[in-house]
């Protein structure tokens, strides 16, 4: 039996003005378990708190009920008081007789009646309270960043800067991501490589950062502070630590007809390759799909020309297991496939390209060495049509396209149009838009400059059809403001393709038990207040894996994610919320219902041997809640058919006791 002390606060006249506090403390004196009851002017004051401490000592109290203001106001205060008095802080319950009683009721009789009932409910609950201790778990002081684009790079650099070791896992042979493929960056037009490659070098040279390139995460176990991750390092058939990146092998390799993915297939590379000049790590990789030596054992040229002796045709995939305290997802985006958009003739004509391909065409390191030549005949295009919103902002029911705005297209199209007009003033540039969306610092100014200073023709309307005819592309489009249908003979058509999360994101989310939206973007723990955290504790989001983003936004989110990781890794131990779910293994059916509703992936199952009443043993599947991951929402408790799952601090019996006390 508990020994409960009741302390009714006057809150000056805030409570005492409408509630007869003496009557409340008298009435509660007779409740079961109550051994002491009093009232005082300001319970939260030092004197009031001392009164509680004295009463605990004098009456050997095991539980405390404070009838006062909202628990959201002073629950923490009174819990500290309880702890100081030597009882468990979770043996305190607050009856809210100010915000939810004296302040909303005017009549002394009804106010007092209700206050007594609220006090009784709190007493009934405390009778069933048990001391709770927050769980503690250690923190592995190492972070994992999945994805080596600008988001991953920035996050890793910021974490390493705070002194914590970081590993980057990148599935391509080099880090750099999409930004490495870009030409110039809006709105300042500095070259992407000039600002990105120094960061890549910083990553390579930072002794806190390890890069696992050409690798992917294959398994994640554990929970916040204690993740066990398996990383699969694909065989690149080149010893990474020996290769100097001299490039001799790539020159001598006889197999030179491999579509170069870095230039989006617009030119070719050799079977052994370094993706681009500033690659990090600058190490060659053999493409096993094209290498003659690996396919049929006939060649071996690269091995002969390699002065360092780095080539190893026998290399195997390697699995690395590592522990991490925090995981940052930075898996980025890809332009969507244009296969379903027949009307734009993307698959019929080489001169209909996506904006990312246009980036490579204008990039000095691209297939045309930066000269704007159209892919089909390498002639200079004189009329270029840009089409915006290709596959963005589509109806949810439509079979093609995405429902969301891809956010970056308006700005990069303005950039492309402006740069084209700047370099080639003899070119007519048309941009077909539905809306021009340019929120962002100096963004709208940038777009206006494209129109006003560079003479780009912005036309409100959409392109309906592109037909290749001879060496021209017949573009049929709407000009909605002029209410005309336009027919333009274009030399080049550039499609602002919608962007979508990388395909690797969905299986990764499953491994991390991190939630995703229907578009496969990772969801945030809170859309406004916790935008860089996943609901799964210890998993953080950086860059476009969370939603379409431009570079400045990505970098700021990357920094924010890093600071969250640093905050986590700076702790030696994680203290959990003790009000978590727990399953009574004797009653658990192992039916997996609770696991399905848990938003945090806190519930796992194990097979456990039980001694049965008939003295046999049986192995039963039972649910186990990880208290470090559980956030205490209680959803599982209702989903559980047998009632095995219960929530500490808000147990079934406690809530029912409150209901009973109120309804008596």
């Amino acid at each position: 039996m508990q020994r409960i002390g009741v302390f009714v606060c006057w809150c000056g006249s805030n409570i005492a003005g409408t509630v007869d506090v003496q009557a409340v403390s008298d009435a509660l004196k007779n409740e079961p378990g109550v051994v002491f009851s009093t009232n005082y002017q300001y319970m939260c004051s030092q004197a009031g708190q001392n009164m509680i401490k004295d009463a605990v000592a004098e009456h050997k109290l095991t539980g405390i009920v404070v009838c006062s203001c909202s628990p959201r106001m002073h629950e923490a205060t009174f819990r500290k008081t309880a702890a100081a008095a030597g009882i468990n802080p979770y043996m305190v319950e607050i009856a809210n007789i100010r915000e939810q009683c004296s302040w909303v009721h005017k009549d002394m009789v009804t106010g007092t009646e209700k206050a007594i009932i609220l006090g009784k409910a709190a007493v009934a609950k405390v009778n069933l309270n048990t001391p709770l201790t927050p769980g503690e778990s250690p923190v592995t002081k190492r972070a994992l960043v999945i994805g080596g684009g600008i988001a991953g790079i920035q996050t890793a650099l910021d974490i390493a800067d705070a002194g914590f070791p970081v590993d980057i896992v990148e599935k391509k042979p080099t880090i750099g991501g999409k930004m490495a493929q870009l030409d110039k960056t809006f709105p300042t037009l500095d070259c992407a490589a000039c600002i990105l490659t120094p960061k890549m070098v910083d990553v390579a040279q930072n002794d806190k950062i390890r890069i696992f390139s050409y690798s992917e995460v294959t398994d994640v176990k554990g929970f916040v502070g204690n993740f066990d991750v398996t990383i699969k390092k694909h065989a690149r058939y080149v010893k990474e630590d020996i290769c100097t990146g001299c490039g001799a092998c790539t020159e001598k390799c006889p197999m030179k007809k491999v579509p170069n993915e870095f230039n989006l297939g617009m030119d070719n590379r050799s079977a052994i390759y370094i993706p681009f000049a500033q690659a990090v790590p600058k190490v060659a990789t053999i493409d096993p799909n094209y290498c003659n030596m690996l396919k049929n054992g006939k060649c071996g040229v690269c091995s002969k020309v390699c002065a360092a002796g780095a080539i190893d045709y026998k290399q195997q995939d390697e699995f690395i297991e590592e522990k991490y305290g925090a995981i940052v997802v930075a898996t980025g985006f890809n332009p969507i496939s244009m296969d379903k958009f027949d009307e734009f003739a993307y698959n019929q004509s080489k001169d209909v390209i996506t904006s990312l391909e246009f980036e490579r065409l204008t990039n000095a390191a691209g297939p045309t060495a930066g000269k704007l030549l159209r892919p089909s005949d390498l002639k200079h295009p004189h009329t270029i049509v840009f089409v915006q919103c290709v596959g963005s902002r589509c109806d949810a029911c439509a079979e093609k396209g995405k429902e969301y705005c891809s956010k970056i297209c308006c700005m990069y199209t303005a950039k492309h149009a402006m740069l084209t007009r700047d370099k080639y003033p003899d070119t007519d540039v048309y941009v077909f838009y539905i809306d021009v969306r340019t929120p962002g610092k100096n963004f709208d100014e940038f777009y206006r400059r494209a129109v006003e200073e560079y003479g780009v023709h912005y036309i409100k309307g959409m392109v309906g059809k592109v037909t290749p005819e001879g060496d021209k592309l017949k573009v049929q489009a709407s000009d909605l403001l002029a209410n005309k249908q336009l027919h333009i003979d274009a030399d080049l058509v550039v499609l602002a393709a919608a962007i979508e999360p990388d395909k690797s994101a969905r299986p990764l989310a499953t491994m991390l038990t991190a939630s995703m939206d229907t578009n496969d973007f990772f969801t945030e723990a809170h859309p406004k207040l916790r935008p860089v955290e996943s609901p799964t504790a210890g998993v953080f989001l950086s860059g476009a894996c969370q939603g379409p983003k431009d570079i400045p936004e990505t970098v700021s989110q990357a920094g924010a994610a890093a600071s969250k990781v640093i905050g986590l890794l700076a702790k030696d131990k994680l203290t959990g919320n003790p009000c978590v779910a727990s399953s009574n293994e004797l009653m658990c059916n192992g039916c997996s219902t609770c696991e399905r509703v848990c938003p945090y992936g806190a519930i796992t199952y194990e097979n456990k041997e039980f001694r049965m009443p008939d003295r046999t043993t049986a192995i039963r599947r039972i649910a186990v809640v990880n208290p470090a991951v559980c956030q205490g929402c209680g959803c599982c408790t209702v989903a559980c058919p047998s009632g095995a799952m219960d929530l500490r601090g808000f147990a079934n019996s406690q809530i029912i006791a409150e209901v009973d006390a109120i309804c008596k």
Partner: protein
Amino acid sequence: MQVKEYKPLIVAFCCNWCSYAGADLAGNNRLSYPADVKIIRVPCSCRVNPMFVLRAFQRGADGVILCGCHPGDCHYTSGNYYTRRRMALLFSMLDYLGIEKERTRVEWVSAAEGAKFAATMNDFAEKVAALGENKRLEDLRCKR
């Protein structure tokens, strides 16, 4: 014989993050609602087991209302979506058993909606009071 004025008994389950805070805000702004409403704090509306609702009725409550964060705003991301399904089915079942549908309600009240909280409670209490005492949920045998 003197008729005692009928006062309904209403149990309100409020989630800690939105609706309980909304109720506090109603208090801060001194927006009054009937004292018949008694609030029970739960971490999330999804903590409310249909058994609690039935228990309240069994013990003589005249109305039960659940308040939670607006859909999409749940502190635990998805709790109120489950609440929505559970309570939709439970309420539909109670209605099927002939229990007055005005006795049950789910309302989404954010921490900023003190006024909505008070208005909701006023409206709910009025509707429940109009129905009178909860007789349908009492023992069938005794009433025969």
